[in-house]
């Protein structure tokens, strides 16, 4: 296993853990934290590929945008969560299930 693959594995692990959080957490904020893990894993990928692909700065730029996106997403998501909390007094994802069937 070379170095690149190490990083890729770390990214894959973070990605999987992020997915796991998204799937299993009931609390919306916790789900959001899982999403952050996923985004970070992608960033690790980008930078790793950048580093071992001939120091390609495109990956850096991409990662930068991802971080911006993460911030935006977190802001909007939290706004929505808080709004929901005001209406439901709960932010457990599975309790928000009026919309079934």
């Amino acid at each position, binding site marked *: 296993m070379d170095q690149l693959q190490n990083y890729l594995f770390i990214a894959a692990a973070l990605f999987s853990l992020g997915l796991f959080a998204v*799937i299993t957490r009931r609390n919306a904020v916790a789900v959001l934290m899982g999403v952050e893990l996923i985004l970070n894993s992608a960033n690790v990928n980008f930078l790793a590929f950048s580093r071992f692909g001939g120091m390609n700065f495109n990956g850096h730029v991409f990662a930068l945008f991802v971080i911006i996106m993460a911030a935006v997403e977190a802001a909007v998501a939290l706004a929505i969560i808080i709004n929901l909390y005001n209406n439901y007094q709960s932010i457990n*994802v*599975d309790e928000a299930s*009026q919309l079934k*069937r």
Partner: protein
Amino acid sequence: MNIFIEYSLFIFFLPLAAFLINIFFGKRLPRQGDWVSIGAVLFTLALSMAMFAGMIFSYDPDFQVESSFTWINLGDFNIQLGFLVDNITITMLLVVALISSMSHIFSIKYMAGDPLYSRYYAYLSLFTFSMNGIVLSNNLMLLYMSWELVGLSSYLLIGFWFAKKSAADAGMKAFLTNRVGDIGFFIGIMLLFTAVGSVVYSDIFTSVADGNLAGTLLTMAGIGLFIGAMGKSSQFPLHIWLPDAMEGPTPVSALMHAATMVAAGVFMMVRLFPIMTPDALVFVAYIGGFTALFASTIAITQNDIKKVLAYSTVSQLGFMIMSVGTGAYVAAFFHLVTHAAFKANLFYGSGSVIHAMHHALHKKNDHETDPQDMRNMGGFKSRMPTTYRAMLVSTLAIAGVPFFSGFLSKDAILSGSLSFANHHPEHFLLPIFGFSAALLTAFYMFRLMYMTFHNEPRMPELIEEIHESPKEMTFPLVLLATLSFFIFYTLPYFNPFSDQGWFTYVIEAKTSLVHGAPSAHAIAEGIHHSHLPAMIISVLVAGLGFFLAWQMYLKRKLSAERYANKFSTLHRLSLNKFYVDELYARFIYTPVLKLADKIAFLDWDLYDKYVVDGFGKFTEWFADLIGKVDYDGLDQGIVDGTGRTANRLGDILRNLQTGRLQNYILFALFGVILIVIVQTMV
């Protein structure tokens, strides 16, 4: 255009015009339009007589005029319709016109006061029209069409008193039974047409003579056509409609079920005799012979005067058919002609009796007693002398007593069968059928006469009210009785023991066109040889029949009851017409109707219901699946499938959509894995 064809056109279309006038305007015409129909039929009678005279004067056995036009022309597919006028046609036309005229006249009084009087005459005209079509046709197509129209008019006339359920049933039965026969007829036509490419007799004859059509196929065609004849001529096993048809007005019975419509089958066999293969003829002969005997065994125990005559008709038709089968087709035609006269007469006679009974009962306000039941009659001889005499003459004729017409024709038939058995000893049954039937004929006819006219009245209270029928009704009786004497058929000869005369001259037997069939000459030779023994035997058996009847019903020396008890099984069988109707009901009608119900059920309640109806039904079905195993799996599985699967799948998918977000994601991921696997594996 030949004068005969012109006459034929008139004969053909006049009744049709009468029918149309009467059906649309009859009610509004004076006398409800009966004169239209009567006039038309009398005119055809006059024309027929003119043609007959022409025939007699020319006295040419080979006389033949034919005229056709193309009815359907598709290029290769052509159907020609047309008339063929030869001696057979002319003779038959006369018979039809005569009997028909008699019926028309007889009905004036018989049907007087009926609310649908004009329609009755319209139907009679329609019948005459269709019957003339059968007679005049020079091709199978027009024959078949007229054949069916005869079926229609018989349906209408038998069911004329439709408010009576039995009449309506009988009409339908007649039509349907005829249609069963028509299947055979139709198949025969198709076989011939396919081989010949034409429906015209002469083309077919030429083709058969050329050997284009032979062997089994021709036999099949012949038998097919014969099955049609069986239907019309009421041969076993399609005879069931005729006795029931007596539900119709009696003049109708006389017209159709004695003289004309039922004769159509025989007429067709006579016309098409040249293409009948020996094999087919054997079949024909056996059917005819058996019917002759079978029907007469039923006739001996019937108490309804018209039923006796009906079975007698069946039996006589059996004679004719047998005769065709044995090759003596001229004899068959001869018997057809003579039988037409005397049997029509018998029917008119019985009509007269019934009419009288009916009026008497009506006067007595008795609506329970059956006016047709001979057990209620007796001693009418003095009250209705004309009727009695006329019927007696006809009875003698039908029984085959010398000096009467029936003797001549029956004798010819019996000698034909005897000769046939001589040549083909394996067919010894045929003459036995014939002679036994002749014996029984004499027996039941005299039984009828004795029960009706002789002895003391069984209902003495009625006898005062029984009167001779009016002129319109007795005139046909007298006329037809006269025609039952031999002399009209043997002219210019006066030999009462030989059928030799104008008839056998102009209606000359033609050799069958089928290869290997015996020549007309050979057949005639055989008949000639068997003539004497046949005559002797027939006179003997007729005498024996008469004697038995005389002993039993007039002298009461022999007790009918005792014999009935002695042979109770046979008696019951005969009385109940051998349960043929019941057997049919049990083994044909009921199963077919049940099958129809089953199919309809299958179609509508199973197949259809579960194709598209599966929606929604599924849940219900699933719930009580355990208790409900009565539908078979196949139907459920295949037919219901579509709708239900869609529904069930929908349910499952809907449950996926739980509203719980993370399940969605889980499924999405699962989908991703699935796609990866598919993509890598494929």
